[in-house]
């Protein structure tokens, strides 16, 4: 949930002159009271349930705390982080998370761009395809995970029925440590790609028609039109799409909880699932918090890297 800051910068909303609201108000005290009453619930809510927990997580990452007994905590400095560095399961789950991110970016972003270009052309079937692509956006992760789980089932699942019908050997999917992560990745792409398409589509529709007309006159079309006209114009949009795909990839939990529980043999364990296990199975609050802080730092680093790459690559 994250593009606002980018957008606030871009929109000159502050450019309205005479923005000192108090000038028009005659009864300052009741005015202040009203403002306070309107603002307070939001501020209190965000402080208690968002910002408070963020600070609390940061503090806890330097402590040894059990979820079962919060009063008996002990300051341990960087011990949690040091332990993380030596925890092979943690490294494994971070590795899986990064593989998932890379898979998502490599497959989902280009595919979404292509689909958005196609939808933008208003061909026959566009309305239906749009609805189909966006349907997963309003379907719960739990339902998606349950349905895909059944489709992947080794003996009786739909995919193996289709594979068997076409004469190929059936596959173990989620029960194989080699296939489980790609299988989970596929679910993620199916679930999220509509979102990327949506953002690209909004970007494409903001491009003035005159640009396309000029390109048409110059004889630029097809692949070259996409590569040299659309992509450079959509630089900012592309950045938003890759940002969102990255952030969502770090947050994957439901399919792993429902379909594999991190298995087989940790093949689908990831950062959030590892954190969930540490906190709610081992009650290890401090350690789980250290994982959370590490993830925040890592995500921020990845986004910074992407911002840099996309900027230099497409500058012209």
């Amino acid at each position: 949930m994250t593009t606002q800051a980018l957008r606030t910068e871009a929109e000159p909303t502050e450019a309205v002159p005479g923005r000192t609201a108090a000038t028009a108000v005659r009864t300052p005290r009741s005015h202040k009271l009203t403002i306070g009453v309107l603002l307070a619930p939001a501020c209190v809510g965000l402080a208690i349930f968002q910002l408070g927990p963020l600070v609390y997580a940061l503090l806890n990452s330097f402590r040894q705390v059990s979820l079962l007994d919060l009063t008996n905590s002990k300051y341990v400095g960087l011990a949690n982080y040091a332990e993380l560095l030596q925890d092979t399961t943690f490294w494994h789950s971070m590795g899986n998370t990064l593989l998932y991110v890379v898979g998502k970016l490599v497959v989902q972003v280009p595919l979404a761009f292509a689909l958005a270009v196609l939808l933008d052309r208003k061909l026959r079937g566009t309305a239906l395809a749009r609805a189909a692509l966006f349907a997963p956006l309003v379907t719960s992760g739990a339902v998606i995970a349950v349905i895909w789980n059944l489709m992947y089932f080794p003996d009786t699942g739909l995919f193996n029925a289709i594979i068997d019908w076409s004469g190929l050997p059936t596959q173990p999917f989620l029960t194989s440590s080699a296939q489980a992560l790609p299988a989970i990745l596929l679910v993620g792409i199916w679930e999220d790609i509509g979102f990327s398409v949506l953002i690209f589509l909004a970007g494409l529709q903001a491009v003035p028609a005159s640009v396309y007309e000029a390109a048409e006159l110059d004889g630029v079309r097809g692949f070259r039109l996409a590569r040299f006209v659309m992509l450079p114009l959509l630089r900012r949009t592309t950045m938003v799409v890759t940002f969102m795909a990255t952030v969502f990839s770090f947050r994957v939990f439901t399919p792993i909880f429902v379909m594999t529980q991190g298995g087989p043999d940790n093949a689908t364990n990831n950062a959030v699932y590892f954190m969930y296990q540490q906190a709610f199975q081992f009650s290890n609050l401090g350690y789980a918090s250290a994982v959370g802080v590490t993830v925040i730092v890592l995500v921020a680093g990845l986004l910074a890297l992407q911002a840099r790459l996309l900027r230099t690559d497409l500058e012209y």
Partner: protein
Amino acid sequence: MALSSAATPGERVRRRLGSVVLLAVTVVFFFPYLWMLASSLKPTADVFKYGFPLSWKTFLPPEPTLANYATIFSEFGFGRNLLNSLIVVVCQVVLTIVVCAGAGFVFGRYRFRGSRVLFALVMVASFIPFEVVMVPMYVVTRELRLTDTYAGLFLPWVANAIGIFLIRQSVQEIPRSLDEAAAIDGASTWRTFVQIILPNLRPALLTVGLISAVAGWNQFLWPLIAVQDPNKQVVQVAIATFTDPGQLPTWGELFAAASVAAVPLLVVFLFLQRYYIRGVVTSGMKG
């Protein structure tokens, strides 16, 4: 691009090819839903009898029955889960709209000492992925004695940073002259908010309400950790725990429950797509 008027034969072929690709996309994305619905209408014993080997009976119920739907309500207590989800979503949507409208109005109209800092903090909150702070959030909720309560399920979400942002944007689009005129006529700040601003915010409020409804109905991880009492559990968690990994689930019932959890929202979405999508695009948030 309205090129069809001067379409060359090559362009026509390309457009037709594009339509074929779109059709394929439609099938790939609707397919799991159709399979789910069809399977939910089959007697449990038949679900996988017809699943393997592949035949038309895999995709269509030869003798449709509502027995699975009857079972999940009579034996699995799914009605209880459904009611829980409904209560949580209604409370969440109403409170979210109220809280976000007030804060969005203030941030969109007034500057006072600290207002910039406060708004910056709201934006910071919108950047925090829930999964990263879920553990301390759980601790806070537990310390407030809110675990295993409905309030514990919806209260953490009503101060919605993205909702505040969306409403602030809409407030800034309303001409200032409107409320200045009201102020000159002697309307209080409160009256200006209720009678001038709120009616103009209807589309934005609908967008925020929809985003909040979809998020509330679909949430999984939070109710999974915040609620232990099966009588308070919501639909999504109930479905996921119908089946444990490695164990054979009761297929037909599972499909029926998943259909109940997914289809109403899909129908609402089809009618109100415009508002929901606008919110998703301008805020970069997914349900």
